[in-house]
């Protein structure tokens, strides 16, 4: 009987260890998606022009979207970015279209992708299964330059907000403490960059 009790206890301990270590993967999918950039749809061109429209349509896949304004196709190589339904997407050569989640001196962008994994069942007639897992990675852009760089981990965030002690202080804490902050406040990572973008002043 005690073995069953111990087995249950061991299960609990190992699951606790797993959850304690997994929260360290804080960077993935932890930026909030609440940035509203205005209701009017808009296309920003590389030459600085901006087209505001109430009749915009976006077709194609996320990596290669096609923007249509008033029924006319816009050449995507001339497009810097576009705003649709309050969400701004930057056009990049390397990452295609990326969604803005933080706006300011430093813009943070999210790129969603589908990770395909395959597994094969065992038995006399093995079958191959394909699983699609939705994942994201993040990029930052400084001063609306159009140049983006990866934001992969805590150190990248510290480097990005260097020069703003308040923002650095928010992120330069132990991984577990950071994970707890994110758990308490879903906007925590957004707020680190918002403090930086707010001339390094507290948000409230």
């Amino acid at each position, binding site marked *: 009987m005690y073995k069953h009790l111990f087995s249950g206890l*061991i299960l609990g301990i*190992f699951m606790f260890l797993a959850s304690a270590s*997994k929260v360290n*993967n804080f960077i*993935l*999918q932890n930026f909030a998606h609440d940035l509203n950039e205005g209701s009017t749809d808009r296309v920003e061109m590389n030459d600085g022009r901006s087209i505001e429209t109430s009749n915009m349509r976006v077709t194609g896949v996320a990596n290669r979207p096609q923007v249509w304004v008033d029924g006319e196709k816009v050449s995507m190589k001339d497009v810097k970015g576009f705003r649709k339904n309050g969400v701004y997407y930057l056009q990049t050569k390397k990452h295609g279209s990326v969604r803005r989640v933080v706006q300011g001196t430093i813009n943070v962008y999210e790129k969603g992708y589908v990770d395909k994994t395959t*597994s094969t069942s065992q038995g006399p007639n093995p079958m191959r299964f394909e699983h699609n897992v939705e994942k994201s990675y993040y990029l930052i852009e400084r001063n609306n330059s159009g140049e983006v760089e990866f934001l992969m981990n805590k150190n990248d965030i510290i480097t990005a907000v260097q020069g703003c002690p308040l923002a650095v202080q928010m992120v330069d804490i132990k991984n577990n403490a950071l*994970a707890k902050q994110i758990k308490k406040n879903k906007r925590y990572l957004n707020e680190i960059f918002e403090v930086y973008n707010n001339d390094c002043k507290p948000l409230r």
Partner: protein
Amino acid sequence: MENSNKLTTKKPFPNFTGHWRPFLLTFVPLVAGTLIYSFEDLPLFQGFIRNYIPDFLWAFSWGSCMLWLWNGCVPTGWWIAVVASFTIFELGQMKGVIQGHGDFRDIIIYGIGLFFAKKAWKINQNQ
């Protein structure tokens, strides 16, 4: 005579004689995995080592611990509970219910960890 025989053969659970190998099989992988997580910023612990080795060691340690407790004969129900727990854990992450990001490959890695724990236990018993 019968009584004295019973006294010499009965080993209560906390008796550590013969337990040092299972102890090492359980705790060394756990400590190694924790160290990888603790020093994840080191260039040595990037990529595959950072992403999968701690998961493997975690499952290996769990499997060894169960085999140690049940002296190699873990009831099928408990194996099912172990596999179900980490599968639900990964699926929960995929659905966003649990913090972290789920990965089917992790489930396979956990399975491999359990498999090797059983192999290690067999080697341990044969020695």
